[in-house]
């Protein structure tokens, strides 16, 4: 596959992920993750260890599916009213599969969240390990480094 085709495929995949989050289709969003996929949002800039350093989120598919189930629960207080989001990705850089067969991608993001007359802005960098599958990918690892990781943080509800 030539560089432009791969770039285009990865961008389409990442935009699909963003759109599923924005449209509240969290079940379909979770389907993008490999069964052994991990979603990681470190608490510290440059964090390398998720075992002895706390993470904002460090969850595999079974725990993420609890998180997704909760997003559908009408009684989740912090989700009342349900926040609405716009996820924007830019500066997408793609690196073709290495020996492990994983395509690596990086992007900057801004997520604007609107709830009960209040807007919050989150931003940072996302890194993906993508497992090619058919004409698309599954996420083996998504790492979200918030710009303000390590600072005083507001509540985080919808994933970025």
């Amino acid at each position, binding site marked *: 596959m030539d560089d432009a085709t791969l770039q285009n495929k990865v961008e389409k995949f990442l935009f699909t992920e963003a759109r599923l989050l924005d449209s509240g289709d969290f079940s379909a969003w979770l389907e993008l993750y490999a069964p052994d996929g991990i979603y990681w949002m470190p608490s510290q800039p440059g964090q390398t260890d998720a075992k*002895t350093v706390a993470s*904002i*989120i460090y*969850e595999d598919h079974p725990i993420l599916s609890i998180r997704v189930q909760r997003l559908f629960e009408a009684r989740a207080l912090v989700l009342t009213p349900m926040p609405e989001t716009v996820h924007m990705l830019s500066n997408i850089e793609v690196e073709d599969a290495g020996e492990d067969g994983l395509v690596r991608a990086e992007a900057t993001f801004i997520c604007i969240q609107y709830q009960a007359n209040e807007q919050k802005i989150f931003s940072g960098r996302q890194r993906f390990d993508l497992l090619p599958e058919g004409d698309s990918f599954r996420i083996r690892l998504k790492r979200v480094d918030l710009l303000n990781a390590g600072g005083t943080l507001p*509540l985080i509800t919808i994933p970025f």
Partner: protein
Amino acid sequence: MEQQEAITVDDIRDLVRPHQVHRRAYADPEVFQLEMERIFGRMWIYLAHESQLRKPGAFFRTRLAGTEVLVTRHTDGEVYVLHNRCPHRGARMCMVDRGNSRLLNCPYHAWSFRPDGTLSTVPHKQSYPESFDMEAPENQMQRVRNVESYRGFIFATLNETPVPLTEQLGEMTDIIDNLLARAPEGEVEISESYFTLEYKGNWKLHLENAADIFHPTFVHSSSVGAAKRAPQNASRLDSDQTRTMLEANGFGIDQWEGIRLNGLPNGHSYMSNFYSKGVLVDQTEDPVMTEYKKRMVAAYGEEKAADILSVDRFNNIIYPNMILNAQHQQMRITIPLAHDRTLIRVQCFRLKGAPDEMFERAIRFLSTLASPASMIFSDDVEMLERCQAGLDRDDTPWLDFSRGLDIDRTDETGSVSGVASEMPMRVQFKAWVEMMTQEVA
């Protein structure tokens, strides 16, 4: 604008009834100012743990009452608490939360200070007058005079004549002792990573919520339901810890009637633990716990190790700002910013001599319970903010704290209740009135 009369001791007394509290306790900035003066300005306040200050020059930035302070380790090994402000022109000095520096430098005119706050050098000394005294207190970073450590937990007070620290802590020293005893080497280290969350609400709301065993059923139903329906032992990351923690908040009548609450003098309280099925506690076939118990027995002997591990007290509230969970190696600190703004700092501990996995589980516990993305604590914080919003916007005067009033009893351990009582909140407000009405420190 109409001139408001200063708040009096009688006004404060009138805010608290046996079963009710007035909204002004949460919604009045003037009451908050008095709290900063008479509670956070007079009591011993936990600031940092000694394991954060290993080497000379190490510092940690935090708040004491309304003041930003640096907790430092001096070259002589002593711990100092300094106002984070240059005495020269008043600039805020340190802009990071922690670090290590032999000298603290003000970037404006380059006065530099030793970790004990004394002035080390000023550039172009010859242009200062002859009367300029490098040793004078007004040319040093202002020190908080009274600093004390209880077994590694550093407390300070702005009170010039405080009661002894251990007197204020009372029986709550037991739980700090128990945390240390849970380490086979008898020492703990605080986690380097922590979360700092800010919520739009009064600081007391957080302490009340931590003592409230009635709310989890309602507030946490979304995560309890999701965890209940999820398959057990599905995650490869955490031996089902996250799922069982989420599920454990599904309180019913067994918990309401089964969790014993203890209220003590000075506003302290604790409850019996409810994370009884798994979650870092006794898991009989868990190799980590087996190894840990083996090391505990080797360190203390069979009987004493069993005693130490049998202490199963949850949310030990050390009034006015500390919540300790020894058996889960967790701590939360409440830092008031304004009547309607509070910081919560959440950390955990490493038990020296325990298997590494014990700390990894404590880190996991910390993330699951108290991360900004926590499926548990986010709903608590949301509720605290809604309380503040209601209290700020509506001036209906009284809040109800009557639950359990007819059933609570008193024994040699203090006030005791087993029926989801609001007794711990009444204990907090009793201490609050005592502290707030002392006109002379």
